[in-house]
């Protein structure tokens, strides 16, 4: 993943008279933004989503409550940003990994979903609660919110891209148009499995992910398992 720390900032010994570099402000904003998301997620995880206030988030992040609103409209907004980051992170984990360039579809999809789960792992309790919360039709986290739909669309477009680059279209079976819908349901299934997996180090989820992708991908490419 491309991150902020790539620009040079080793000139601290010499006092500078010029204005800070143009990227500096944006960089600072990025740092604060991340701090807010991280603090919020920690609170969601420990105190619960419903009881966490933006005030508490600000306190934890060490900033004024008003500052939070410079970045986010609400705590739902923060949660959504986190999920967007999670998807970005997972896509990058597949895209930017040179080892996966020639890997079979199965392995790419494994890396995609596994990266998501790894990203979510520190906030497991919150993820479980968020899934329930998302069932509320009025919720901003719900499947009907515009941003959530956009995010899902981006995620599934990437999955479709992976499927298509794995083989020329005509080689896929007639059911390949089902892929995005089916994969979304599959992903939610994996998420639920993971949440309820009480095995040590969630080893069962790993096995389940591996085996189910194995079956799924061969079904997709051969039209039969």
């Amino acid at each position, binding site marked *: 993943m491309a991150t902020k720390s790539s620009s040079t900032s080793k000139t601290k010994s010499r006092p500078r008279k010029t204005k800070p570099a143009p990227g500096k402000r944006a960089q600072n904003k990025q740092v604060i933004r991340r701090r807010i998301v991280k603090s919020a997620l920690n609170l969601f995880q420990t105190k619960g989503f419903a009881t966490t206030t933006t005030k508490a988030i600000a306190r934890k992040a060490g900033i004024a409550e008003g500052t939070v609103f410079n970045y986010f409209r609400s705590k739902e907004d923060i949660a959504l940003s986190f999920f967007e980051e999670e998807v970005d992170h997972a896509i990058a984990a597949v895209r930017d990994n040179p080892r996966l360039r020639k890997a079979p579809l199965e392995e790419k999809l494994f890396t995609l979903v596994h990266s998501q789960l790894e990203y979510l792992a520190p906030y497991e309790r919150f993820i479980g609660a968020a899934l329930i919360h998302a069932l509320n039709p009025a919720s901003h986290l719900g499947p009907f919110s515009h941003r959530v739909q956009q995010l899902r669309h981006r995620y599934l477009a990437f999955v479709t891209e992976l499927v298509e680059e794995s083989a020329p279209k005509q080689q896929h079976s007639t059911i390949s148009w089902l892929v995005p819908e089916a994969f979304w349901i599959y992903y939610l299934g994996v998420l639920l499995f993971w949440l309820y997996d009480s095995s*040590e180090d969630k*080893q*069962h989820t790993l*096995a389940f992910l591996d*085996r189910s992708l194995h079956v799924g991908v061969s079904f997709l490419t051969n039209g039969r398992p």
Partner: protein
Amino acid sequence: MAAEENTPTRRALRMASMGAGAAGRYLTYILQRPFVGKTAGQRKLKSTHTRVARRMRDEMQALRGPAMKLGQTLSLQTGILPAETVAELASLQMEAPGMHPSLVRVQVKRSLGREPEEIFEKFTPEPFAAASLGQVHEATTREHKRVAVKIQYPGMRQTVENDFKWFRTVTKPAQASGHIPKAAIDELELQMLAETDYRLEADNIDFFRENLSPLSFVEVPKSFREYSSDKVLTMSFVRGHHLEQFLAQKPSQKLRDKLGTNLVDLFYFQLLKLGAFHADPHWGNYLLNGDATIGLVDFGCAKKLTPHALRYLKNVFLYPGSRHSPEFRRILESNYVAQGKKLPAAAYRALVSFAEKFYRNVYPPERNQHERFDFSDKTFLTDYMREATKLFRTKHVMPEYLFMARTEMGLYHTLHALKARVAMSDIVRKYL
């Protein structure tokens, strides 16, 4: 590696499905569950729906390695399968599904904290061998040592636990009738759970590396603890060929005799001298060389004998007198008495018959007989199975004997495949 058609697994699958129809006992079900699917698969099933179901089942079975091993061990007790089949089964390896490089990386990172490429100077992402519960990769350490890294498929421990839960349920009637003693299931579960912890295997490697050093023809790997955990085991590379590869090179009779002799020597040195033995007779665990040396790998299943069991074995082997004598009876009884049991008449008869009709032939007790036993004729296997079946049917077999019988079967099977001629008694006598 051998062509797919010829893998021991395939052969065993075919053989098992042939034999499984022969009798309708509880264990038929257990044997069938992991195996019969393949034969059914030969028939073309038309509807996609059925095919999906079948594939799912095959996939789940792929995770069911432990159940297979279980059926394999217990198949020794039932006598429902022909002798050669059981011998094949005894040396069959339980295989976990293969892992792609990304899963390998995840598994290593979770277990050792870093990805294999960070840990080793060189790491081959493709495995070079399947292992029980996982697969083996070649690597080079930062100290430029060539090593084999065994990595476990996720969730094997839980799979073993679940398999046993299932197994205990379906065998309730067989347990009640005494056909499958509860103690035997407990023993198996304990052993198989132990196999899922590679740290215990590293302990075994260290033990055998030290204690087998008097045998110059045996090579045992060295464990690398700093690169090992419960799910990853790093050990030095051991050279050699699997039995099938070895036989494909058409080794001379002399070499096969020498190797057979060394294999038997290795077995009885462990059994009678160390009182502990490598109890996984899968032939992939024995690497054979043209100079008649043996590389020993996969120490997941090692068994220790109790002192009284060891004493019993020493007394009973090569017993010189009549095996119908009161003294021989006392020896047989001693093993049961030591465990607070009585030797039932049926078990006594079966043991005497076993000693007479199998052991006396293969291990003649007379001191002047240095004749080599020829393992190329399979009659001895049939004899062994017939006698073992009689014994197991009495339902009074010591649980620890399960593992010994399995290893012994594996050894005989290898000797048969080698068509080796071995002076069995001379070897045993060295360690009495």
